[in-house]
């Protein structure tokens, strides 16, 4: 299955914040952080990378100061599924709790507290196994590479 790609422009010279998050002690849930690690290794100018256990309000200041944000997270999927990318709706709101926030919640807080809610994308990495301590599944390993391709594509469009 081919990964979907959203054709959305990113303005030139944008400061891009990439946030990969998840629990790397729980199998495929750590995929987001793996992706963040790879993106960070590119050392691209204008690209800042955060690898986090989970999304917390402490991130909202960095989010508010970015021109564009790319979130990378594992999503429950079936074996063989591919990574995908979708834009977080500009008016998306989330009633999430303070601990387990989602991209919409962080963007909402950034907008409320700092007056800037940047455009954002969510790259979903397919995940099938969330057991404690398990290595990444085959589906997720493939998904991580697909996700990095998607992120590279997003960044290259600026």
């Amino acid at each position: 299955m081919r990964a979907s790609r959203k054709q959305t422009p990113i303005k030139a010279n944008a400061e891009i914040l990439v946030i990969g998050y998840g629990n790397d002690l729980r199998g495929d849930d750590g995929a987001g952080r793996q992706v963040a690690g790879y993106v960070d290794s590119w050392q691209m100018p204008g690209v800042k990378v955060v690898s986090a256990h989970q999304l917390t309000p402490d991130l909202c200041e960095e989010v508010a100061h970015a021109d564009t944000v790319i979130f990378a997270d594992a999503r429950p999927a079936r074996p063989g599924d591919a990574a995908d990318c979708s834009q977080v709706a500009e008016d998306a709101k989330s009633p999430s709790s303070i601990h387990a926030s989602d991209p919409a919640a962080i963007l909402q807080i950034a907008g409320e507290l700092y007056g800037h809610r940047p455009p954002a994308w969510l790259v979903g990495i397919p995940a099938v196994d969330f057991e404690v301590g398990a290595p990444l599944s085959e589906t997720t390993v493939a998904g991580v590479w697909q996700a990095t391709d998607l992120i590279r594509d997003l960044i290259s469009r600026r």
Partner: protein
Amino acid sequence: MSKQIIIDPVTRIEGHSKITIQLDDKSEVVDAHFHIAEFRGFEKFCEGRPMTEMPSLTGRICGICPVSHLLASAKAGDAVLAVKIPATAEKLRRLMNLGQMIQSHALSFFYLSAPDLLLGWDTPPETRNVFGLIKANPELARKGIRLRQFGQLVIEYLGGKRIHPAWAVPGGVRSGLDPESRDQLRARIPESRDTALKALDIFKKSIANYSEEAKTFGDFPTMFMSLVGPGGKWEHYDGLLRFIDSMGNIVSDAVEPKKYRDFIGEAVEPYSYLKFPYYKPIGYPKGIYRVGPLARLNTCTSMGTTLADQELHEFRFRFGVANSSFLYHYARLIEILAAVEHVEHLLDDPEITGAHLRASADVNHLHGVGCSEAPRGTLFHDYNVDRDGLIKGVNLLIATGQNNLAMNQTVAQIAKNYIKGPDVPEAILNRLEAGVRSFDPCLSCSTHAIGEMPMLVQVLGHDGSVVAERSRG
């Protein structure tokens, strides 16, 4: 007809729990319990592991206070190796513990408790949360977020990451603090101090609104325990144990942490996986004692820093030896201020950027106890090892566990005060939860469990049948 009311799960605390309230035939509260249904098992599955792994292993107990376990475990390892760690290493460990204190207390106050305290207990649940706080007072929310971030930056700059840093090890620490990072932290001190003072100001001005809560959220006499430093000063990393009674009289003093078993026993009850520690000379359950911010402020002679000592003076002028668990919130804010001031002193110490970080040795003792003050209270890691340094036995005495008896009594007190019949309004349910939240319990730490429970409140008849049911969230 007697009834049982269940709150399951309790929200806006770390970990999972439920509260049951038993009504008699006249619909009066006869008893209440705070149940922990989680079980983690670290004390068992760590057997056979190398002692050197224990800081990283036990750091995984919790995602909020991993530093506390990291440090207590490393100290147990220091004892097994029989080393005195280098001065720079001790100062760096202290720095990290202070960062931990700041971020944890800031989380507790601004994220978990402030929605109740500042928006009001009767605000609808859908707005009585951090989003409601952001709308009501965005400036305070912003400051609270940055204050927590400051504590996390201390941890990150030392340990490489904010959660589960693999940094403190038996004998010292793995990496130091470079001058640039030190200066970046130092630059955040004025703002952090101002935020702590602002939060204290807001709380003190509004405390008159909480007179009923102060009387009913765990206001009963107990002993208190914490580490204290030389001269009884507020201590968070080292020192000796002090027990005081509810009037402030010292009951036991200068107790070496490695002798904790002579003073602290652990009971179990069938309705909870959380153990029930008690003061042994008095016995169970009358040997109830509390730990954590309120205990530390009650047991110490001073905070050791200028502004925090002023606040402590005012706190004692108003409350004396504070016995109301509601005042944990106040104590937490004073500790944030003290921690920020102590961080500043450490950053000004030239040894903080030193390079000698670790002492080396082999196993010299087959038993070691590490003790430090976690944000929630005194934490003990007790290890028995073999000659190869493999773990043979582990006992973890967690801060939250030591408050278990008090949390149960708090729930019962609130229930008896507010529940006058089988119908339980939402606001009173939140007061029950808020009473527990005063302790800022970390149930994931204290029971070593992972679990998920649906949000359900059930009223049961005396025959166990469900009389009424309400779900939340």
